[in-house]
């Protein structure tokens, strides 16, 4: 990987991390406020109180797993790309 490719890759990773954040925020809204009107109960609690807390937590872990598996690439962080610099 050249230095240029590394920096492009990092930019891509950062952008997808940001997108992950947006997805998580939407899930957080839907699972909490979105479910707040429902009468359904889980563990004796209104379902939003479970979805908006433990649900968000579990979903965040799934998202991070997907993000790091699909988007993140392994490359050497030190001077390996040095020879490509002008």
């Amino acid at each position, binding site marked *: 990987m050249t*230095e*240029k*490719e*590394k*920096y*492009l890759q*990092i*930019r891509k*990773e*950062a952008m*997808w*991390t*940001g997108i*992950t*954040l947006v997805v*998580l*925020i939407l899930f*957080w809204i839907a699972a*909490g*406020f979105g479910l*707040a009107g429902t009468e359904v109960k889980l*563990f*004796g*609690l*209104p379902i*939003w*109180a479970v979805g*908006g*807390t*433990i649900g*968000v*937590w579990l979903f*965040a*872990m799934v998202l*991070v*797993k997907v*993000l*790091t598996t699909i988007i*993140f*690439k*392994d*490359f*050497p*962080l*030190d*001077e390996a790309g040095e020879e490509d*610099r002008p």
Partner: protein
Amino acid sequence: MNGDLSQLLPLLGYMAFMIGVSIFIRYQQQHSGLMNNFVRTYFIGNRDLGGFVLAMTTVATYSSVSSFVGGPGVAWNIGFGWVYMAVVQVTAVFLVLGIFGKRVALLARKFDAVTVIDIIRRRYNSDWLAELSAYIIVLFFCATMVAQFVGGAKLFEAVTGYSYVMGLVLFGLMVVVYTTIGGFRAVAVTDTCCALMMMFGIVLLFYYVLQFGGGYDTIIADIEARHPEMLEPLSGGKMPYGLYLTQWILVGICTIALPQSVVRGLAFKDNRSLVRAMLIGTFVVGFMNIGINLSGILGQGVLTGTLTDYGGADNIIPRIVVTAMPSTLASIAIIGPLAASISTISSLLLVGSSAIIKDVYLHRQEKKNRRPSDRKLRFLSMMATAVLGAVVFVIALTPPSLIWLINMFAFGGLETAFFWTLLLGLYWRKANKTGAMLSMGGGTLIYCVAQGIGFKIMGLHQITIGITVSLILFLLGTYLGKPEKQEVLADFFPEE
């Protein structure tokens, strides 16, 4: 349970263990020759942190004593809305590592950077900006550390029956000692132990709260009968939407700019450790925040009075611990929150002293073409850590009131100062010195003034003002000022 010596033994043992770990690490680094590059090894380690330790030290630094005492005390009063709000913190670890981790890692290796300020100085080619960053860091870090000391010592006093000062000496002086001796590597390892103790403490507390309250079903049924609003997201008006919004900004998104978090990007080994840390960190933050706040809510089964009966939210958790737990276990359980306090202090101390020594002193010496001897640097670095710790310790001896407010104030100040400077600086080619100076100086000043006079917009926390003003000033400065030099930009943006 007044002044029973056995109450102190678990904490004493734990602190002794921390100091032992620190001495061992120092010894090991001395023998492997790493200490030959003292400044780097002392302040950032050897850029070899693995995933587990990276995750634990990031979480432990980020989680402070108020996440363990003040926060769950409020949860006891407010209910599930508070947990719903606290869970936004699961973003804190994966965001900072995912957005800044590798970028900072690559740049740090390129420039042999030891601090976040090193990178800011290079990017904006400005000594003024670097010194301003250093002062802001030291100032706000001191405020945060005082808050940690006071929070920890008050908890100690409430649970063990020993005096506030005794607690401060026991865990406060000890953390200064072990940080001074061991440097970054010791901080990372002790942080890991602290994070484990926090999780253990939460499990213990959770278990005993359930036991005392007569089981999960009984407690929930009781809450439903006595406080139905605790099962609503807005908690009968006690949790307005605005609070959710500001918490997303203050303890979620903007935490990526906290220098004590970003500095972890200079220290990890490779992609594998980063990716593991993002996953483990998200797990641990969620576990802690949900676990401790849920324990707070279930504490309704332990303390059934009103908030004023117990003298405010800060006293709830100590009261629950004392009431629900056998005293021998209580003295073990409080190691958890104290660990949250010392693990934050240790990292802040080190980043603070690196700002003083590396970013101000050493840089000034280099400009004058002076190269202080290794011996001298070694002495000064350790002295800076010890003195900074001592100053904060002395302030904490006569604690200012409203301590958790100070903590949040400092959080917001650091975010205002560094969020745009780092985010735009590292990803936007056009960002320049004028923008960064205006944003950091002007934004932080306006944030502090707004805090000082209590000015708010739509009742929202001043972070919303700080972060907006600093963005506007950044864009304005970037538009008015000159672009950075080509060679700097080529170093920072080889992709464009």
